[in-house]
């Protein structure tokens, strides 16, 4: 079955509008979605800025960042299984994250046997 990667970017301002009860309910919704059978894998990323590496003039430069110019920071990813791209979009649209940022969906290149 084809696999799709969901790249989640967070909008802290949208999360910040939630009160305590809504925060708890939101966490519970994330868990409910994650425990569905089509979810293969997933991980969160630390919020503090990472490093960007790039080879320049023969040497690798490491810079702090990326400082996202938009408010949205990559918060984590999930890998899911779906029969088609359309189905992947449908499954992802139930993820509560659609309310708190963006979800980018990419099909994973199939490792042929």
């Amino acid at each position, binding site marked *: 079955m084809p696999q799709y990667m969901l790249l989640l970017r967070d909008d802290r301002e949208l*999360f910040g509008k*939630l*009160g305590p009860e*809504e925060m*708890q309910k939101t*966490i519970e919704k994330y868990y409910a979605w994650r*425990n569905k*059978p089509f979810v293969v894998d997933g991980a*969160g990323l630390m919020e503090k800025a990472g490093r960007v590496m790039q080879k320049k003039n023969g040497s690798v430069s490491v810079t702090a960042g990326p400082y996202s110019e938009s408010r949205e920071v990559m918060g*984590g990813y999930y890998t899911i299984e779906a029969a088609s791209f359309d189905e992947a979009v449908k499954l992802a649209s139930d993820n509560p994250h659609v309310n708190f940022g963006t979800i980018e969906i990419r099909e994973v290149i199939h490792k042929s046997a």
Partner: protein
Amino acid sequence: MNELSSPVLLEHLFRRQAGRTVSGLAGLLGFEHLQLAEDAVQEAMLRAVQTWPFQAIPEKPEAWLFRVAHNYAISVLRRSTRLESKTGDLIAALEARTQSVENVDIEQNLRDDELRMIFMCCHPELAPDARVALSLKLVSGFSVGEIARIFMAEENTIAQRLVRAKKQIRERRLPLLMPHSLELPERLNSVLEVIYLMFSGGYATHNGEDLIRREVCLEALRLGQLVATSSMAAPRVDALVALMALQAARLPARMDAAGDLVLLEEQDRSLWDDELIALGFQYFSRSIAGEEISEWHVQAAIAATYATAESSEAIDWPAILGHYDQLLRMTGSPVVALNRAVAVVKVHGPEDALEALAPLENHAVMRGYHLLPAVRGRVLAALGRFTEAEAAFSAGLECDCAEPERRFLQRQLERVRADADSHMAHKSLA
């Protein structure tokens, strides 16, 4: 990803923990840093919602939130430009508490912090509606949106009310201290009033079932019990807890399946919450152990009389009327007088009740209050004065009231019209 077992968070854990942590932080930092305490809790919950979905729920989620909030407060204080000598002490106190977060003593400390926070939020120098909103926000962890829903107000109105109240706390330097003995009675009364306003806000009838109403009622009950089991305990606190428990017990029976109001006398008593009734009676007997008789005592006695009756036919109306007489003497309130009139119908008949209602007609407080014409209409109908009853119910429908109450009045109006018609039919036959 099924290797992560489905975690379960205690119901309302975040809301409860928000209140406790704000109280705990503010208790250490003082009223000057109330905003920092709130920001720290908000930040901790924000981090939880951003990271927990990708990991297992921490084994002790309360401790996690508590620690992250404290660490946030510490980092903000460290960065603060005007480093006062006091700041170092505050940081040390916060660090000490972060380390003792799993210590049993902290439970008692947090209870005391919560109590101090209640007394600050209910300070008589703050406007009454601000006290209620502030308590719900800071002590009970309700959001601005939720508070607005409870009191059917605009979110902006509530937000502004909170900002004003917090400004007053800073300007008047209202401390997070237990009141001293001289001011205790006034301060305690204000706390009890706020708790009951909170309860009534949840108890009021509104359009549709909203779970939040029941949650507010139970939270008010919890705060009442917190005060009743503290060093601020007094018989009138027990009486208030009894009153709220006995009234809250009736919540499940108050509306029928169609969302229509069911009068107390017509409620299915098997739907009443037995545990809350037992709690109510437990506090009621505690409340009458002393000499004191407060308004809360009399109100609790009325609720207890209803609850004791085996069936609606067995309600001891003379006892209820006696309690209302006493309550009316104590308060002089027209709303009490209106409720008393309902008992008068049962004990002395509609003629006397109509007389009891008469002085209320021109009362400023009662203007636009739908229950006055509603009661008047029922009394007139009982006297067979159907045309006047019809007019009363129609007047009730002109008032501002919630949809279930409007439907209730509408039903009464239709019933009295039908009665009038059959009465006319009988007359013409005769």
